[in-house]
């Protein structure tokens, strides 16, 4: 029976037929839609001001290790669900009152702002953004005034955060969209993105700094693109609404005003309908690569020039989506051949084969007849030759709903990333990853004492056999959706792996050999502590 299951689960996919003589076995994952049985019933809805957004925040707020979730509702109040799943079992959620049930919510990102060990949440809204302080036991309270957080009044659509060196409090980037008062000519009316840095007096935030120019951000990500030890701010902007704009990368150096990267530094003009950023080291060069969702063609960017010696790495990226088959420009199933509209993107190794795979939520903006109405979400598996293969339909995640935000946390802690997708005007969906022949895995949680409890800005290196995987700890990206849960690594056939942490302050841990298929909490200067649910 097991052999039969394996036969069903494993498809032999010939990668790059005609280009490579290798025919490799890729484990095609299987997902089961458990939305109804899991007790999840949430819809992101609303008129024009909710054509973008529709995020989900996944994080553990009751200390049981299982990711709970907050789903944006648009014009309706957001919904919060406590995760009642058991390890390896079916997904189960309980609707609960948390204090996060705000209206006009477009998205949400978990972040322990005050570094008290309890996750807080920044809630993006049409109107005022709200910083919600975690009280424990999945209860939250408004903390804008307490922390000096200015939520402004804008169409907030993007968020990211970092801890600048030497700061006790995070630096928050908030991305905004169109001036929603402009009806006849809203184009070119992008409102300012904000940078909220720690207050000089200590504790809380200073007045916001406008990031001028701003170009209608739909995704932001603090990321150490050049491994300098300092995260820069990458912003993906919607070219539909800006004039004279482009994608952006900002210097955010401690004590210095933020400044956009320039052409002299290698940053090249790129104009896309930027909607989401996903990041992972997909080519093993040790540097993060970026997938940018858009309408029709998306982009997959790698550093154009590898670093050489002590010379500064130019901030120049090349698009490798086409040669690596990381393409999602139109539906791959369902018969609708019009161009696609991509939103949330996220890399996770969903079959535990040591290679990052890519999920993309898709969906029409709003009755745009030139774009696909039946636009299946994508699941692109990376193969041994680095190229991607579409398996969304085979894996059971080719939802034709109007996708927006998403997350891929391991809801039932079985070592397989599950999936939640928020849809516009349709119910959100949760999928359980039931892949029978996935590889071994390792789930890690970094914990510092003092500021920056979750080690944002750290790099984790995991060596498993021939694979050398690196992952940056970030807050931001995707489409209006943040995830703060176990950091997942697939290990393939390896029963253990060597793990090294480069902490945000630049110190490097010793290398730990950790047994596979287990959870570990790791703190600076300490041995990893194995953890088990329950």
């Amino acid at each position, binding site marked *: 029976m097991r052999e039969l299951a394996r036969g069903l689960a494993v498809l032999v996919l010939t990668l790059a037929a005609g280009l490579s003589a290798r025919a490799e076995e890729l484990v095609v994952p299987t997902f089961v839609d458990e939305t109804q049985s899991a007790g999840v019933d949430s819809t992101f809805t609303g008129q*024009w001001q909710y054509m973008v957004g529709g995020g989900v925040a996944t994080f553990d707020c009751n200390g049981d290790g299982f990711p709970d979730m907050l789903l944006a509702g648009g014009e309706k109040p957001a919904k919060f669900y406590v995760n009642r799943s058991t390890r390896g079992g079916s997904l189960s959620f309980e609707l609960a009152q948390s204090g996060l049930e705000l209206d006009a919510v477009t998205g949400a990102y978990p972040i322990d702002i005050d570094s008290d060990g309890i996750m807080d949440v920044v809630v993006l809204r049409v109107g005022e953004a709200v910083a919600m302080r975690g009280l424990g036991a999945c209860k939250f309270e408004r903390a804008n005034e307490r922390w000096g957080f200015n939520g402004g009044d804008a169409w907030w659509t993007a968020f990211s955060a970092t801890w600048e060196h030497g700061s006790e409090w995070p630096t928050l980037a908030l991305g905004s969209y169109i001036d929603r008062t402009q009806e*006849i000519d809203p184009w070119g009316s992008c409102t300012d993105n904000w940078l909220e840095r720690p207050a000089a007096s200590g504790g809380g935030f200073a007045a916001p700094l406008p990031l001028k120019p701003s170009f209608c951000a739909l995704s932001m990500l603090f990321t150490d693109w050049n491994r300098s030890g300092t995260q820069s701010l990458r912003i993906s902007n919607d070219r539909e609404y800006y004039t004279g704009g482009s994608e952006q990368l900002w210097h955010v150096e401690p004590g210095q005003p933020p400044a956009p990267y320039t052409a002299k530094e290698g940053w090249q003009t790129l104009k896309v309908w930027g909607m989401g950023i996903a990041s992972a080291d997909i080519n093993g060069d040790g540097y993060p690569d970026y997938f940018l969702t858009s309408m029709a063609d998306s982009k997959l960017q790698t550093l154009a020039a590898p670093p050489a010696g002590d010379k500064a790495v130019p901030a120049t990226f090349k698009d490798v989506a086409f040669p690596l088959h990381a393409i999602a*420009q*139109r539906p791959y199933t369902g018969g609708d*051949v019009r161009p696609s509209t991509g939103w949330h993107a996220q890399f996770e190794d969903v079959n535990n084969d040591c290679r990052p795979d890519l999920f993309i939520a898709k969906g029409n903006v709003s009755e745009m007849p*030139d774009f696909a109405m039946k636009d299946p979400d994508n699941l692109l598996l990376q193969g041994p030759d680095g190229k991607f293969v579409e398996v969304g339909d085979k894996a059971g995640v080719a939802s034709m709903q109007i996708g927006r935000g998403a997350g891929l946390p391991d809801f039932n802690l079985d070592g397989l990333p599950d999936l939640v997708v928020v849809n516009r005007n349709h119910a959100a969906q949760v999928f359980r990853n039931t892949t029978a022949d996935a590889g071994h895995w390792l789930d890690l949680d970094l914990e510092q004492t003092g500021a920056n409890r979750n080690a944002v800005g750290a790099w984790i290196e995991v060596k498993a056999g021939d694979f050398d995987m690196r992952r940056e700890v970030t807050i931001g990206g995707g489409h209006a959706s943040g995830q703060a849960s176990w950091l997942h690594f697939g290990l393939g056939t390896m029963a253990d792996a060597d793990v090294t942490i480069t902490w945000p302050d630049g110190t490097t841990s010793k290398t730990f050999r950790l047994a596979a298929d287990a959870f570990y909490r790791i703190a600076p200067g300490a041995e990893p502590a194995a953890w088990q649910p329950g």
Partner: protein
Amino acid sequence: MSARSLAALAAACLFGLGSTTLAFAGPAPEEVERTWTNMVLLLTRHTPTYSPPVASRTYAYLTVAAYEAVAAGSTTLQSLAGQLNGLTEGPRREPGAAYDEAIVVEATMAPVIKAMFENTGPTGQRAFQAQEEKLRAATEEGVAPDIVQRSEAFGAAVAAHILDWAKTDGSPEIVNMGFPTDYKLIPGPAHWVPTSNIVQQQTPLLPSWGKNRPFAMPEGASCPPPPALEYSEDPNSPFYKQAREVYDTKNSLTADQAAIARFWADDPMLSFTPPGHWISIALQLQQKEQMPLDKTVDMLMRVSVAEADAFIGCWQTKYTYDLVRPVTYIRRLIDPKWETLINTPPFPEYTSGHSVSSAAAATVLTAILGDHYAFTDTTGGKDNLPMRQFGSFWEAANQAGISRLYAGIHYRAAIENGLAQGKCIGTYTVNLKTWKSPNA
């Protein structure tokens, strides 16, 4: 008749409108046309199917509609029925009945725009609706209900007539943003191949556009340019030398040449497109000259028709020769790492669309405003492109043409022969008879 109506009647006589035509103190009818045309430029930029050929077609139908609606009540203008290919006589006004020209123009243009941009996104739909509500309220304020009703009905009838005419021009349905999914590339080194890694653009844009029914010229091939240069890889051949010129020029651009290339880039979805750029120039001229309604509808119609014919003629040529782009040739034979200044458009090279369309526009504008008409073009202002000044329309057209060589996307032959082709095409529009009196 109210005092406001009397004042308007005086204005109507001054602007050459018929004796049964009224204009009230709301927006002047030429202002209504300018407002709607500005909105159309915005919608062009923000509607993904609006490549340059598609945009040129919409401008033509829209401005012909406005022209015909106004001409039907004008003492100075005559209809284009029987002059433009396939255009039959349209609705007539009730003899002796009063019409408000601003309402007529509003009621004519709005349905045409709505039909032509039914596929625009939610923000475009919202903007259109807000603009329509605002214009309708402004034009109808203080106007007698029977005049409002009559003027609106007439405008709607003209719009329907023009939209019916548009359905018969053979224009393809725009699917996949104009990139066919079943197109077979023509083999051989002389022929076009995709120039980017954009998956959607692995086939060329709108290959059948040259078969569309033109407006003023008889057919797409009415102004044939000389054949494209004979393809050769011999370094002494004219073809190689022209490619080398593109390579050398782009690699040694002056700051002003680079600025020129960017000023005229007019990329779809990031600008008003090349035909929209010339419509934008015409709108600036209309304001500068304070043109009355008859001259406004005449000029905008002529520029638009010339642009539409230019894209039909140019596309007919492009898919006759299917010539390889400089970036392909240069990377194959001269420098594999060479980059153009701006993205190479996803369709064959010969002739240059910018050159053909700019020459067509210059031809009609020169006929209207003269040989040495100096003007300033502020089209790119919102995109931080500095305004540029020109001593004549041909100076602008020549600059638009050569900008494509600076950008690295056209050989000189496509520019020079394209300009000549555009002049020929524009002449058909110049020859349209719009004025009842030759001295108007």
